[in-house]
């Protein structure tokens, strides 16, 4: 199994396509950081115009923590699509290349193969999130310095002291990792059904976009299903920037995401074990 995983990782990281995601994350982060360097002060002034009359705000508001938060808000909707690039390709890409029959005519069980594809996608996602942390958080801290972080919500103004922030980012990244693992497992399931990778990648993107819209629509019609959509829970990481932190809600979201991941993974194994490999 470890040998199989090593081979899987070797294949993933030998392929140029893998690095597109890292390049996109880097590009978006750089664009936001550049924009903030050139026009950050007016952005902050605009963002705080509603509260500046009631509060006297001093210090480095435009700091690395705030920039990282802005980048995360912008990126964490796009990252599922980047995860799908690798996870959606995992089984369908092998089928498309014809290498699935090569792999399965070796002494490798189908369940092992699915698990290794899942672990490979997990590790890729983990590295992508770590890269995001480096580029979005640490580079922003380097460029903009530290400071207390203002979290402006529609109904609240939250001030987080600079010594109380780093652990929140660590927890938020860990939660984001969980959410992206759910996306990866769904993508692998879709990948098991297909014989080329375009289908599962596009379908993953479609599902994420549609369900995210449903999760965000404030209509009574959808309020019944919203708690059960994984996209509703994917934004649970934001809870770590509330004060107090809503641990119960975050825990519930984490539970839903884990449940979805297990369901997707089990469904993939059950389906793939019976699939005729005709490609």
């Amino acid at each position, binding site marked *: 199994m470890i040998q199989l995983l090593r081979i899987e990782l070797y294949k993933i990281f030998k392929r140029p396509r893998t690095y597109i995601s890292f390049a996109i994350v880097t590009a978006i982060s750089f664009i936001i950081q550049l924009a903030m360097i050139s026009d950050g002060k007016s952005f902050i002034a605009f963002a705080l115009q509603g509260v500046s009359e009631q509060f006297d705000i001093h210090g480095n508001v435009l700091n690395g923590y705030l920039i990282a938060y802005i980048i995360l808000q912008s990126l964490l909707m796009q990252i599922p699509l980047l995860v799908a690039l690798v996870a959606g390709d995992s089984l369908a890409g092998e089928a498309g290349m014809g290498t699935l029959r090569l792999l399965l*005519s070796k002494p490798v069980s189908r369940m092992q193969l699915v698990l290794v594809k899942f672990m490979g996608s997990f590790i890729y996602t983990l590295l992508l999130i770590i890269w995001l942390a480096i580029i979005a958080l640490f580079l922003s801290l380097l460029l903009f310095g530290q400071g207390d972080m203002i979290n402006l919500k529609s109904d609240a103004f939250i001030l987080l002291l600079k010594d109380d922030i780093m652990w929140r980012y660590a927890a938020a990244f860990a939660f984001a990792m969980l959410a992206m693992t759910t996306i990866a497992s769904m993508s692998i399931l879709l990948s098991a059904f297909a014989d080329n990778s375009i289908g599962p990648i596009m379908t993953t993107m479609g599902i994420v976009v549609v369900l995210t819209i449903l999760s965000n629509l404030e209509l009574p019609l959808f309020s019944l299903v919203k708690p059960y959509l994984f996209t509703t829970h994917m934004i649970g990481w934001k809870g770590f920037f509330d004060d107090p932190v809503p641990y119960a809600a975050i825990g519930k979201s984490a539970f839903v995401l884990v449940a979805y991941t297990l369901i997707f993974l089990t469904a993939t194994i059950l389906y793939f074990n*019976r699939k*005729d490999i005709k490609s």
Partner: protein
Amino acid sequence: MEIILEAVGLTKSFKKHKAVDDLSFAIKRGEVYGFLGQNGAGKSTTIRMLVGLIIPDKGKVFINGTEFINGRRHLLKNIGAIIERPDMYGYLSGWDNLKMMAALSNKNIKQQRIHEVLEIVGLKGREKDRVSAYSQGMKQRMGIAIAMIHNPDLLILDEPTNGLDPQGISDMRALILSLSRDHGKTILISSHLLYEIEQVATSMLIIHKGKKLSDGRVSDLLHPDDTLTEVAIAPNEAIKASLAASAWSAYLQPANDNALLFKMNPSLIPSLNKWLVAQGAEVRSIASKHSFESYFLNITNDTAVKNRTL
């Protein structure tokens, strides 16, 4: 001789189409077993069932007496296969592909073995190139290298000459014969190219529309008396009339105007030639058609199939 692979009653349908229908056969150790059938006859589906890629609706596969489904992972250690095309990871080198497949075989394969296999398939010196830069012939060779990297007893080669030029086909034939004679491999080779199978196989199985038509040793199946001999002569009606009245008429088959076609043992060709010349015929060429081809065409003819399906 010991049976290395046995298929019993293999049956597989895709929706309403029955791709393989109650197919049984056995391959003995050391044989080169030709698996023949027209395109769409069910060869690839059968081969995929043999290695567990397709799950049969009915029937069983035994490898060395063990039912495949009960010992898949263990049994696959002793099987090397190219299924349909020798697809590999094009963005990796031949060496990387071989190394990965060696690692997947669950045997402790040393680098020396990789060098050895590259030598056997004639790819030494090209192993560091990306597979995407290989010619079709090189890919087929690399496919065989991957199939045999873990030194299996049984090689399953599905259409190994597909897409090869004449030189490539000849090289592949030599390689298959060498694997059988020099390395003691049992080989199942499928093809729709009769001539290829005829050149290498010791036994064969012919299927048509998923059903077995015939199997056995090539020497038993192909009777020399069924060989077709085509004689091209200058147009001469008198010769045709003499032929019809002679003992040679027993061998005569329908043919076009400028040729005479005989179904007979090739040992009779010199006598026939002498007789034709004595009758004043201007013999332009004499060619023996492969008895294999006539056997195959005869057996896969639909009318014949109705009467001969086993």
